[in-house]
């Protein structure tokens, strides 16, 4: 390092100019780049969700003609983009690539991730995949749903192949991130930072990385075979040619069920950090929470068939998968109980990150319990493809993961940008999102129980009231996120300077300046105790 004098004292002003960002290998900068891009895609996916809800505000007056969208085809396309963007481009990379990239090395006292160049490559992979995915919107669009189920995905005249290529490339990005995290956790821990002294967020990222490595390749080959089926008609997934569409679903869910835990596990890690910090108390059952992350990761590979109870897999397989799915409840409940026990007799401070963490616990409990309901074979046969399922996974993915992403942003915002945000704005945003979320999705449980099928752009008048309530709720969520955006932007521009450790946390990242310097720590930290030594 020749002229150190020219460099600033933190990672943001260490080098200057836009180009220095595009060529950076600093994990913190790459985290910020993911932050900006993923949040942009989140806005796009969110607007599509609002459009879908707006369309469902009332049943159609003329059959086949929408209230807002032109017709059913348009609805299907928007629905597909909403799903594909939110899954592949927002929630899967959301926590690992943004908060994980930024904080994993800081958490374990490392200077960077193990392979900084590969880390940057993963961002470019992600951007290339995202560009292809968004690009399909300007061709013939896609209308398969984010799951690309065969045989429809083979026959539809839309740009499925391009979207599949996009998912493939984004999958590579996910693999590279996971690979980096595993090696970083194994090899780059600071002296004294044993595995059992790692913060629980790191444990959850570690479990997530294992899933990314083991599950994503199967998605890759499945998508390649789907493309081969489309172009060559080899008859592997097409029943007309002697193929088996159920095999596609097996392969697809071998990835996509673990992917569900790729989405939720890091969220659980963030919540563990926030809960212990704002309870001023040692986390209850550290080892149990740490190992239950690995437990969830392991079990996730044995349960995928519960997506296929009515798809034509054998009844015996259905029963087996139904039984195995119940097992997911065990490590998940372990986490939940330990979090509640952490709160017990803690000095709880209701700062905005804590509100999100508590919101997570409330909503995730509902999402999790309805998940167990859906794991029961006969109940799922009844509820399959109704709004009950839609409500369930939104409670987990939005109520769980998104709540945790927001909580994590507010928790680490001072560290990431060195500025404080307006607490009032963050709380207001939470109130709107939390109430709006329940208003939007709780009625969908009832709609599902009434039998309203998902993915339809019209419905019978009996469902109208609850749909109206749901749509109004979606506006509340929208307002909540706008307030959140305003809070963040205002904090960035006008926020007062953040101290080194505004929350009084005990993990390593709070013991380096905000924002952290280029090399993370002035002196390599030496760890002598566990991560949550409160009192």
């Amino acid at each position, binding site marked *: 390092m020749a002229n150190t004098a020219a460099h600033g004292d933190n990672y943001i002003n260490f080098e200057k100019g836009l180009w220095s960002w595009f060529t950076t290998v600093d994990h913190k900068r790459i985290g910020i780049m993911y932050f900006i891009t993923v949040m942009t895609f989140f806005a796009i996916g969110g607007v599509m969700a609002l459009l879908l809800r707006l369309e469902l505000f009332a049943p159609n007056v003329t059959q086949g003609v929408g209230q807002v969208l032109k017709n059913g085809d348009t609805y299907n396309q928007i629905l597909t983009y909403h799903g594909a963007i939110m899954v592949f481009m927002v929630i899967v990379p959301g926590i690992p690539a943004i908060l994980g990239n930024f904080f994993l090395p800081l958490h374990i006292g490392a200077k960077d991730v193990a392979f900084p160049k590969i880390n940057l490559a993963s961002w470019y992979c992600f951007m290339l995949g995202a560009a292809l995915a968004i690009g399909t919107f300007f061709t013939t669009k896609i209308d398969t749903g984010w799951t690309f189920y065969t045989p429809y995905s083979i026959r539809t005249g839309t740009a499925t192949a391009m979207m599949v290529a996009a998912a493939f490339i984004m999958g590579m990005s996910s693999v590279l991130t996971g690979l980096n995290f595993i090696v970083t956790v194994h*090899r780059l821990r600071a002296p004294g930072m044993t595995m059992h002294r790692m913060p629980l967020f790191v444990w959850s990222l570690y479990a997530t990385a294992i899933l990314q490595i083991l599950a994503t390749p199967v998605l890759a080959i499945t998508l390649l075979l789907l493309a*081969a089926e489309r172009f060559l008609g080899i008859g592997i997934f097409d029943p007309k040619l002697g193929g088996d569409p159920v095999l596609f679903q097996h392969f697809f869910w071998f990835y996509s069920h673990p992917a569900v835990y790729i989405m939720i596990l890091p969220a659980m890690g963030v919540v563990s950090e926030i809960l212990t910090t704002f309870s001023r108390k040692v986390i209850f059952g550290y080892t149990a929470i740490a190992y239950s992350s690995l437990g969830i990761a392991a079990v996730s590979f044995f349960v995928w068939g519960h997506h296929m109870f009515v798809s034509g897999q054998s009844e015996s397989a259905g029963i087996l998968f139904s039984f195995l799915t119940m097992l997911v409840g065990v490590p998940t409940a372990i986490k939940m109980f330990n979090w509640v026990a952490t709160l017990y007799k803690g000095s709880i401070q209701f700062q905005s990150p804590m509100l999100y963490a508590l919101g997570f616990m409330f909503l995730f409990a509902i999402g999790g319990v309805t998940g167990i309901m859906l794991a029961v074979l006969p109940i799922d046969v009844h509820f399959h493809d109704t709004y009950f399922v839609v409500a369930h996974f939104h409670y987990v993915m939005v109520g769980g993961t998104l709540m945790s992403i927001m909580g994590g942003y507010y928790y680490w915002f001072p560290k990431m940008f060195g500025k404080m945000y307006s607490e009032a704005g963050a709380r207001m945003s939470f109130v709107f999102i939390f109430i709006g979320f329940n208003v939007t999705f709780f009625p969908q449980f009832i709609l599902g129980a009434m039998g309203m099928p998902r993915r339809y752009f019209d419905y019978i008048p009996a469902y109208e009231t609850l749909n109206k309530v749901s749509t109004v709720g979606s506006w509340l969520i929208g307002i909540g996120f706008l307030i959140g955006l305003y809070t963040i932007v205002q904090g960035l521009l006008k926020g007062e300077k953040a101290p080194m450790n505004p929350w009084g946390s005990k993990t390593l990242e709070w013991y380096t300046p905000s924002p952290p310097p280029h090399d993370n720590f002035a002196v390599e930290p030496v760890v002598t105790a566990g991560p949550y030594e409160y009192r």
Partner: protein
Amino acid sequence: MSTDSTHGTHSAHVAHHFKDASQQYESGKEGIWLFMVTEILMFGAIFVAYAIYHHAYPDMFAEGAKSLDWKMGFVNTLVLIFSSFTMAISISYIQKNEQKKAVIALGTTVLCGAIFMVIKYFEYAHKFHLGLLPGKFLDVAGVGAEHANLGLYFGFYYCMTGLHGLHVLIGMGLITWCMIRTMRGDFHGQYWIPVEGVGLFWHIVDLIWIFLFPLLYLVG
């Protein structure tokens, strides 16, 4: 990193975020193994699909296997095994600072890869000539196939060997890159992890072929 020239003529150059050469080496090695796991799972999944369709249409698969020439596959197996051998010894040479021998070994490996691809090309050309194409491009009546979905067998054949062939090409490119850098003197007894990584990749390519050969050519 200061210059540690006491050890022979070379020392490892250690990236700034690693503490020492051992940490860098072990990290690199582990990263490569993790990547190999993804390769195994990606190829493995297509093997699983193969097994299931073989179970569903055993006679059709037998018909497909008969139309392949096992001699071609046999020669290719030997070529790949030999290239794996030269790849393995090239790393030993680099570790012993015998770069010239290493370059020869690496060159032989690339050459074997090229021979493999040439044989593959003749095999493909022959199949194309006979009209044995994948999926809907296979004219069932034209080639006199007994089973109407023989295209599925050739779908598997082309997907599996095609994906494998792509890996051979990528491997050849990577080995050439290693060879050039070895000639430049970048790799030596204290720094060889890129060569070892490419080597592991090449062995995986060999490993997959070891299973592809009986699967496609022999088991009917």
